[in-house]
């Protein structure tokens, strides 16, 4: 990816430098920096600004923005673009996310690198379009039918909206898997200063290309050691076939074979599970000597941080474990912390989703759940009170 | 002249009728076997006759002047001329009357030539007696005639030419150049006809297609000509000046975009013998009949094309065509044309010599027809102009021509085909030109070299050493190995048998009427002469007019003729049609029906029988309505009406009864009263006259326009008057000039027969005969046959039949 400083006329691809922008725009810029040249979407609060920004930016840089007739189509188009060799993304929120689920399954089955941004809002159903939420965390993991693994990242700042979108593309390309950016209304609409690095310094991963040249025996779904098959794309002469049906390494349907089903589905899960350590990321704050830990992600993590700081001032040994990767879930990291602390507090803007994973990972250590629904995110005081409560 | 005026005027005239009778000698044509003076003297004794004269040629200027003079001076208000057939001179005398200020419908003719003098050449007395009767009948009718006003109808100034041979092309071009719109209908894919198939033309020996091709392209390019190939006339309705024609146009399956590049032909997988080359060459399913075809657009013969119905199995031509001109979705169209005149130039068929087994055509490969010869000798033909024997493709050393194949023979056509002699002579010279050493024998009956330059050509052939032998071969044998041929026959000049060996025999086949002539005949209500060709209105004076007004004949459709004659006749026909259209209007004879609404009860019987739907029922008023313009005057409605509500102008009940009365005034019991339709039977009787066919003198012919006019009451009236027998004669079923009016004739006569049987009468006394204009023979024999019936009638029988009318 070259920086477009050469021609004064040409708009820059990566708008490096310190900039003030909203989370949605940062996400859009991040995708572009990561090499996204195709966006298909459908207007929905609070993700619309991403589409709007893409519609302005992509044409400048020979990208494609298209507003499809619905989110089903958007997701299908994204898969199509990816198979045509272009990095592709869509952005939506709850209801649209639900519509996308079937084709997310198709993306999983056909191992399509693509990024789905879900700026979460209050549900269920139409719910509260303009209010924040973290209610789609489990849907992101289990939303489509069948067994599979995906990757989901949770930004909690505008800067992260940029950075994690880049990472999301890198993961998608590395593991040929749909990757989610699970933001929320607040992070999406929040304006902050963002530091966009120089293009060269941005790490970009591109999908593996087939090492063999086109030949009749070519097997498009034959995995390497990392369980990820190199990806051929349309128009390069491989004449390969891909299908949502259970298939063999040639890509041909195997609708009756137990062996094929087992092999395929297990590999689809294992290529993520076996590479978990390369994927999972968390951020630790003041956990070294902590007696109580807050486990949080997204917008909740920001309140959690000030709560921890406040606690330290009050003499409470508190720390924060911020989950950057939600899926695959960071069991080890949570487990380690759990073993060190007396209790854990999990604030989420839902009725308890990630907390179940935390409980699973933290064994005996007591876990206090702080639920929040509607406009207001958690207040640091609430989290602080909860921590102090655990130590009484 | 309004109806009431007419009535008052005639009623005045009733009181003082002043009739002039003129008996014509027609040289000796009449005077030879009829005592014209006596007839004139007799006429003078008839009621209201104030002038009765006989003269040599009434149709001459003097004759006509005399009539005019008498009308003026003697105040004649009715005129009778006893001379030839009204079909010949009625127009002449009507004009004379008109010029003298007498309404032409106050004129009547007595046909004492065709119907009397010529058919009773040797019975002067009886002939004269008959002539007197005929005059008596004419006078009886004329005294009841009323002045009539003719309606004038406009003429559509467009012409239809049927047939795109050289005659049709010429006629179309002439009319188009005159400025009339012409529809030229040709059923083949290209115009050109026979002439296009011929190599050279006699006597000038110039290349046939070379002189025809320019005319063909003129035709297709002419702004006034609408060329409809692959088309056939389906229906002709209406009348002179106002024909409505339906033409069905078969699809070519190739659009006008065709550039005739022939790429399609190269890939077409099916072949068939090319009709144009008489099967000597091959064509494909997609083809053009010949190089110079017009239009040049190719066409697909769906009969052999692999693609049937909706399934396109083979798309080779479609793919081969750059211009995307192949279109299997083309559908047949029906075009409706309004034309004022029709020229029939449908040409002739070639006699099929396979029927004459002695010549071995279709058995011996080297026996060919003159048409096959034309294609062989033609540089553009299947052999590239080499005269080769089909058996071995070798040029023969000796050839023989056999003349009159299918002509002038009892077991084929009786007539001379007119062109074969000269065609053969031309062919012999062509052979001599290319292969001088070839021995050529021509076996003939007579050599007919009658035309301009023909004799020279004949002599040239003789000088070139062509051997002309009088006497046709009795048989042609083949040497199975060499396929050489032996001709065996008698040289009737030297009275010796000849046995000649040749490499090839050319049968000089004659021409015959189109196998499907009957279709055109029916559509345009034409007549045909015994040889089957279309009959002209008059053999001398109207040789290109058909009997039906507004229809004309050109080329071989009328009789076998060569190119020159065809072109001449075509131009003549075009001129005749042009004259009609130039007038822009035509007066319809005032012989149509009139309805007396007060007598009409709305029973609708008339409406049911009217062939022209000219009568429409008006049930709410319990009446019918009569559209005079649509009426053609057959009179079958009037014959059907039980309430005498319909009058046929110029053929009223009263007038016809008066003729019956007059015909039966003396010796009724020996007489035959014959009702003959104008177009066929009356003309048939004329034809008998023209052919001098002798038959008994006791028949009295009453002319009606159609046999459908003959009401049962006329027949009953004849019997009531004591007539020995009655003949009702009309066109053959299907040939009726009024579409199907004669079906009513049949029904009515059958009803009469039943009645006669019921009354115990001898139904043979009423005869029904279908006699065409060409069947003079049939007419005379019909009269001869009826004699026995006449003789068998006894007084008792007569008395009974006199009461027939009264009894139900």
């Amino acid at each position, binding site marked *: 990816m070259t920086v477009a400083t050469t021609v004064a*006329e*040409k*708009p*820059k691809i990566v*708008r490096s430098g310190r900039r003030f922008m909203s989370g949605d725009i940062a996400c859009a810029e991040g995708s572009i920096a990561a090499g996204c*040249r*195709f966006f*298909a979407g459908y207007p929905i609060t609070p993700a619309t600004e991403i589409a709007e920004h893409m519609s302005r930016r992509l*044409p*400048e*840089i*020979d990208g*494609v923005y*298209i507003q*499809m*007739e*619905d989110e*089903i*189509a*958007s997701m*299908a*188009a*994204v*898969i*199509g*673009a*990816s*198979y*045509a*060799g*272009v990095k*592709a993304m869509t952005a939506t929120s709850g209801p649209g996310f639900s519509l996308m689920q*079937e*084709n997310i*399954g*198709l993306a999983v089955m*056909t191992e399509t690198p693509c990024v789905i941004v879900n700026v979460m809002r209050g549900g269920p159903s139409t719910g509260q379009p303009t209010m924040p939420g973290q209610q789609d965390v489990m849907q992101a993991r289990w939303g489509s039918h069948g067994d599979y693994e995906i990757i989901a990242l949770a930004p909690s700042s505008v800067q992260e909206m940029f950075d994690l979108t880049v990472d999301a593309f890198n993961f998608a390309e590395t593991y040929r898997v749909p990757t989610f950016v699970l933001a929320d209304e607040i992070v999406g609409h929040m304006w902050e200063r963002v530091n966009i690095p120089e293009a060269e310094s941005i790490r970009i991963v591109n999908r593996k290309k087939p090492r063999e040249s086109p030949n009749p025996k070519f097997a498009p779904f034959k995995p390497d050691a990392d369980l990820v098959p190199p990806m051929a794309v*349309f*128009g*390069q*002469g*491989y*004449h*390969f*076939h*891909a*299908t*949502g*049906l259970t298939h063999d390494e040639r890509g*041909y*349907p195997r609708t009756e074979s137990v062996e094929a089903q087992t092999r395929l589905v297990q590999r689809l899960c294992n290529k993520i599970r076996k590479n978990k350590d390369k994927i999972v990321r968390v951020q630790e704050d003041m956990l070294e000597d902590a007696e109580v830990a807050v486990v949080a992600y997204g917008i909740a993590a920001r309140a959690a941080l000030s709560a921890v700081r406040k606690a330290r001032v009050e003499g409470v040994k508190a720390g924060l474990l911020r989950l950057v990767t939600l899926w695959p879930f960071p069991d080890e990291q949570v487990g380690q912390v759990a073993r060190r602390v007396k209790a854990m507090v999990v604030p989420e803007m839902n009725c308890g989703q990630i907390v179940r994973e935390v409980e699973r990972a933290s064994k005996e250590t007591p876990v206090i759940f702080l639920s929040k629904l509607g406009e207001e995110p958690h207040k640091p005081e609430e989290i602080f009170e909860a921590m102090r409560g655990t130590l009484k | 002249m309004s109806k009431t005026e007419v009535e008052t005027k005639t009623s005045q005239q009733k009181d003082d009728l002043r009739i002039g009778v003129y008996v014509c000698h027609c040289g000796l044509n009449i005077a030879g076997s009829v005592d014209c003076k006596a007839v004139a003297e007799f006429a003078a004794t008839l009621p209201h006759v104030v002038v009765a004269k006989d003269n040599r040629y009434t149709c001459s200027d003097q004759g006509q002047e005399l009539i005019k003079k008498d009308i003026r001076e003697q105040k004649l208000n009715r005129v009778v001329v006893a001379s030839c057939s009204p079909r010949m001179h009625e127009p002449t005398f009507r004009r004379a009357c008109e010029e003298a200020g007498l309404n032409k419908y106050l004129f009547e003719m007595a046909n004492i030539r065709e119907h009397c003098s010529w058919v009773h050449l040797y019975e002067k007395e009886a002939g004269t007696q008959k002539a007197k009767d005929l005059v008596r009948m004419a006078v009886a009718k004329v005294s009841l005639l009323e002045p009539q006003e003719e309606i004038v109808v406009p003429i559509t100034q467009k012409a239809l030419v049927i047939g795109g041979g050289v005659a049709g092309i010429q006629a179309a071009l002439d009319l188009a150049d005159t400025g009339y719109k012409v529809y030229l209908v040709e059923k083949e894919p290209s115009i050109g006809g026979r002439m296009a198939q011929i190599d050279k033309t006699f006597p000038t020996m110039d290349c046939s297609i070379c002189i025809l091709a320019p005319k063909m392209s003129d035709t297709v390019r002419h702004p006034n000509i609408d060329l409809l190939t692959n088309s056939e006339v389906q229906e002709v309705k209406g009348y002179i000046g106002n024909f409505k024609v339906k033409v069905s146009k078969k699809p070519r399956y190739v659009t006008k975009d065709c550039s005739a590049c022939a790429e399609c032909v190269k890939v077409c997988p099916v072949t068939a013998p090319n009709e144009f080359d008489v099967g000597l060459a091959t064509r494909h399913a997609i083809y053009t009949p010949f190089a110079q075809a017009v239009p040049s657009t190719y066409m697909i013969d769906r009969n052999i094309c692999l693609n049937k*119905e*909706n*399934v*396109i*199995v083979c*798309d080779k031509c*479609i793919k081969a065509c750059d211009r995307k001109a192949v279109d299997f*979705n083309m559908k047949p169209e029906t075009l409706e044309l309004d034309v004022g005149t029709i020229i029939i130039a449908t040409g002739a068929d070639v006699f099929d010599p396979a029927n004459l087994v002695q010549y071995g055509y279709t058995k011996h490969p080297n026996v060919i027809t003159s048409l096959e010869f034309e294609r062989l000798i033609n540089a553009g033909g299947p052999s590239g102009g080499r005269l080769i024997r089909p058996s071995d493709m070798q040029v023969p050393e000796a050839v023989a021509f056999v003349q009159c194949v299918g002509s002038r023979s009892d077991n084929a056509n009786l007539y001379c085909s007119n062109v074969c002699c000269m065609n053969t002579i031309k062919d012999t010279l062509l052979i001599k030109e290319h292969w001088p050493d070839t021995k050529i024998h021509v076996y003939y009956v007579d050599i007919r070299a009658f035309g301009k330059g023909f004799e020279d050509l004949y002599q040239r052939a003789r000088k070139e050493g062509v051997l002309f032998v009088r006497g046709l071969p009795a048989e042609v044998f083949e040497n199975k190995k060499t396929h050489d041929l032996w001709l065996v026959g008698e040289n009737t000049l030297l009275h010796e048998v000849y046995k000649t060996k040749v490499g090839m025999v050319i049968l000089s086949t004659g021409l015959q009427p189109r196998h499907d002539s009957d279709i055109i005949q029916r559509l345009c209500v034409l007549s045909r002469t015994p040889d089957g060709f279309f009959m002209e209105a008059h053999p001398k004076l109207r040789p290109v007019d058909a009997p039906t007004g507004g229809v004309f004949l050109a080329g071989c459709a009328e009789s076998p003729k060569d190119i020159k004659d065809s072109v001449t006749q075509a131009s003549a026909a075009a001129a005749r049609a042009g004259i009609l259209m130039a007038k822009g209007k035509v007066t319809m004879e005032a012989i149509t029906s009139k309805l007396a609404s007060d007598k009409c009860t709305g029973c609708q019987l008339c409406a049911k029988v009217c062939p022209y739907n000219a009568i429409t029922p008006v049930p709410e008023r319990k009446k019918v309505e009569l559209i005079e313009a649509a009426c053609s005057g057959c009179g079958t409605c009037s014959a059907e009406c039980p309430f005498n509500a319909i009058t046929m102008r110029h053929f009223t009940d009263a007038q016809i009864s008066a003729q019956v009365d007059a015909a039966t005034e003396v010796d009724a019991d020996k007489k035959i009263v014959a009702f003959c339709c104008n177009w066929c039977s009356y003309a048939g009787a004329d034809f008998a006259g023209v052919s001098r066919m002798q038959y008994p003198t006791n028949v009295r012919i009453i002319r009606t326009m159609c046999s459908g006019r003959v009401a049962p009451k006329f027949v009953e009236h004849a019997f009531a008057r004591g007539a020995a027998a009655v003949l009702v004669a009309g066109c053959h079923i299907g040939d009726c000039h009024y579409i199907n009016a004669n079906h009513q004739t049949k029904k009515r006569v059958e009803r009469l027969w039943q009645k006669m049987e019921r009354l115990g009468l001898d139904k043979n006394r009423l005869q029904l005969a279908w006699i065409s204009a060409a069947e003079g023979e049939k007419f005379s024999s019909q009269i001869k046959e009826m004699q026995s019936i006449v003789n068998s009638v006894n007084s008792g029988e007569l008395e009974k039949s006199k009461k027939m009318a009264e009894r139900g």
Partner: protein
Amino acid sequence: MIEEELRHPYDKFLRKDRIPHIWCEGCGNGIILNCFARALDELNMDLDKVAVVSGIGCIGRISGYTNTDSFHTTHGRPIAFATGVKLANPELTVAVISGDGDLFAIGGNHFIHAARRNLDIKVICANNFIYGMTGGQGGPTTPMDTWTTTTPYGNIEQAFNLVHLASACGAVYVARWTTLQTRWLTESIKKALQKEGFSFVEIISECPEIFGRYNKMDTALKMMKWFKEASVVQNFSDPAEAKITPSRIVVGEFVDIEKPSYGRLLKEMRTKATQRKTGE
């Protein structure tokens, strides 16, 4: 025989290791595949630049048989998927081959919008009036009064007139043929493949095993006989009048117009965008 098999002229358009295909005896899908191959052959297309996309249903399997890049999407989504492919790589010729249920029931929305946008893809619809793979249920094209497993009392729904729908939505090329008219069908597929913009070819395709069996035409021959007797070619007649009834199947080309494709407009818009000074 093997040696001949190698020489079947169209083998090069097929994934030979997948032939014979799964379709029933006499199934129209095979004829459609055949015509598609013939079209590619006659246009002498670069197979590297052709992508075949299909949805769910019997005909959906077709993408598995064409020797091109191919994708077998979820039910109803081939057009949406194809949108992504075509826009991401404009030099590909993208053919969507799918069934009437896939394209017009579950996928109907994508069809009308792709046509509206004049997206440069070729949609070939095998219309067999029924859901074959699921055993013969009624669908958006099932004629009135027809018997299917879900219309046991006869179908009471009006059927879609697909060519009318396509032209109303703005398709630049619209044709309908039966599988019997392979020649015209192939020509239409060729036209569609060459034309810029949203092209639609509807193929009335026989399903003797299911539709036929339920409706007294239990062999391909019987159904073809119906096509032969009922079909009427009416090129460029009003698609609204192009009815399909037991006695009449109006076939032909209905629309062939020129209109800039979405791709072309997108390209033009891009040039505008790139030349624009970024006001920052």
